[in-house]
């Protein structure tokens, strides 16, 4: 029962490039429906962690399980299947296909997933408020609009997890708010959201924040105590689940201070 609740499970995962430990023995369990932020300074291993979660990369050591299924031994094609069926990706730099219109970009995701349906694609754009911009090329859209197209694209195949890498990194405040509202809606719908960010506002929206430093999980903070209690119940029922990392962000590791607004965390 409990394992069904855990959508993503990382078990002592490391990613090593030569001498560099981009990720160092990270264990993390994410239950279904949780909104998680991964924070940390540049080079802390956030993106590596995100790539591993998104099945874009595989760990050097340790195990990754999505929906209780170990993805370690999957071949590239199977990984691609997991990617398209389970994960919806949102990037900082949007990565829209420049020669396809907004709606065509969304349809491309349908195409690689299963079946193209323009009506569905238009509906997804309508939900991010871009129905009237559907036939514009990315170059004709503002950054915020492009990111919303990305979110529509990530949503179109109804993924288990929305995985967003600095989704607001290139956006102004107004657009940041629009994107966060979209995430909030998604979260209320029950979608698991994992956001990699170094923006404390964005990170603070999540139920749970974890901090990486030099590839290690160095801190954890819960913004939603109810969610924490639920999670701890889960942990007690199943000892395979990685427990809450007891260290708070205020912990004197303080290595993240240079990029994270530490005052924000001390309040918490």
């Amino acid at each position, binding site marked *: 029962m409990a394992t069904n609740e855990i959508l993503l499970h990382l078990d002592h995962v490391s990613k090593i490039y030569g001498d560099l430990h981009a990720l160092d023995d990270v264990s993390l369990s994410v239950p279904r429906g949780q909104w998680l932020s991964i924070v940390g300074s540049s080079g802390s291993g956030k*993106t590596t962690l995100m*790539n591993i979660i*998104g099945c*874009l*990369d595989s760990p050097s050591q340790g195990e990754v399980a999505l*929906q209780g299924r170990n993805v370690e031994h999957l071949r*590239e*094609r199977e990984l*691609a*299947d997991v*990617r*398209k*069926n*389970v994960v919806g*990706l949102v*990037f900082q730099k949007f*990565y829209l*296909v*420049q*020669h*396809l*219109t907004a709606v*065509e970009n969304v*349809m*491309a*995701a*349908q*195409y*690689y*997933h*299963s*079946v*193209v*349906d*323009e*009506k*569905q694609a238009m*509906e*997804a754009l309508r*939900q991010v408020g871009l129905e009237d911009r559907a036939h514009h*090329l990315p170059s004709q859209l503002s950054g915020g609009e492009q990111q919303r197209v990305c979110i529509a*694209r990530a*949503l179109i*195949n*109804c*993924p*288990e997890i929305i995985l967003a890498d600095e989704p607001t990194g290139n956006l102004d405040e107004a657009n940041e708010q629009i994107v966060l509202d*979209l995430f909030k*809606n*998604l979260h209320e*719908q*029950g*979608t*698991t959201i994992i956001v990699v960010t170094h923006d404390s506002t964005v990170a603070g929206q999540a139920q749970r924040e974890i901090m990486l430093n030099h590839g290690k999980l160095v801190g954890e903070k819960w913004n939603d105590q109810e969610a924490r209690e639920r999670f701890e119940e889960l942990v007690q029922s199943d000892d395979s689940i990685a427990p809450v990392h007891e260290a708070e962000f205020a912990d004197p590791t303080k290595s993240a201070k240079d990029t994270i607004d530490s005052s924000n965390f001390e309040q918490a």
Partner: protein
Amino acid sequence: MADKQETTQYVPDDSLSSVSAAGGNGYSENTHSTNTDGVNTNSEKRVFTLEDIKKQERANRAMFWTMIRGAVIRRRSRAAMAIIASLVGAATLFVLIMVCLVVPAQMTEEMRAYGANLVVTSNQTGVTENGIQKDMVEHTTEMMTATGFSQTHATYRYETVRVNSASYQMAGIDSSEVKSMNQFWDVTGQWPTKTNQVLIGTDVAERLSVKIGQSITVGYVDDNSTGTILDTDGTRMQIVGTVSTGGNEDSMLYVTTDTLNKLTGKERGVDAIEYSSQATGDDLTKLVNNINDMRSMNVTAQAVSKISTANASIITMLTTLFWIISIVIVALTLVGVSTTMTSIVSQRRNEIGLRKALGASNRSIAVEFYVESALYGVVGGILGVLAGVGVSEILITTVFDRAVELNVWIMLVCVAAASLIAVVASIIPVHKASQINPAVVLREE
């Protein structure tokens, strides 16, 4: 694309689509779209009819072409680069084929028209004691055409005549026959068409020191006559033209058969028939043997080769040259198109990474790029062939002074070659690109 599909309708209200259990893939994946209009909320296992699946396949095919169209039309400058590379290749290939394949072929054909390739002579015995009579000429001609090869022929009656005390060979001919048979004869002035008009070889003209328009006295040397070299009797004939071939013709005189009949005072059959037959090689040998086997005809057939070995070797050289140059051109085109494709593909590394992140298989990415390349090849090929037609027409008419015969097959071959080269050239870059690790590309700043 906008096919109405009630069952897969997206969430119609403001709420974002909720997540249901994921699993499996393919068409069943669409069951995740929750339909909140209350009709299909529990349709975990939706049944797709064959028609639905066909509709879906159509929609995906349409999307495939939409993506290709987007890549080609909205990336015009890149597409133009690839098309121009193919265009130049196809045009060069076409011009080369036209010049080096068609020109020698036309030359061979025209050289074949250079005189006869089969000569029938009388044995001066039996039915041909008085030359080959008209009905025998017809019979021989029938034997020639019976084999299925078309022919043209010219007849010659030879007599020895005397001009200014020197002996010459005079031939009685039908001017139009000989003219069409021997198009390579360099004739100045006119062919003899009326009585007592004579066409003389250039050697004869030189020895007699005569020019066109002057007259000569031609005496008939009868075998039985007692005439001497002092005999100055003869018929005045007007020189209407001179002929130069570099061969025996230069020391001959040509008059119409009618003139010769009058000069000799007797009619007889012809001494030789020259045939220009379409038959070559073994077919020609067979024809020669057939005629020679008919002993009752009292004629001898002989195959002659008027296309000199030198001419044949020039054609071989041209053909070899064509192949060498073509291979070089094809290689250069391959390099050009390949470079272009590599640059196009490398500019789209991010896009490829993204597509892979969206779940595209290597194969589907490769297919997209190959189809795109093939399109560039076809478009470039067609434009290239059109350009090639123009260039080769100018080149062949002005430089080679020949008419261009457009060959649809060569055009098609060039277009096909251009497309093939474009696809082959993109194999390596596309293979490399499809191996891109999406994480690596998307991480790049």
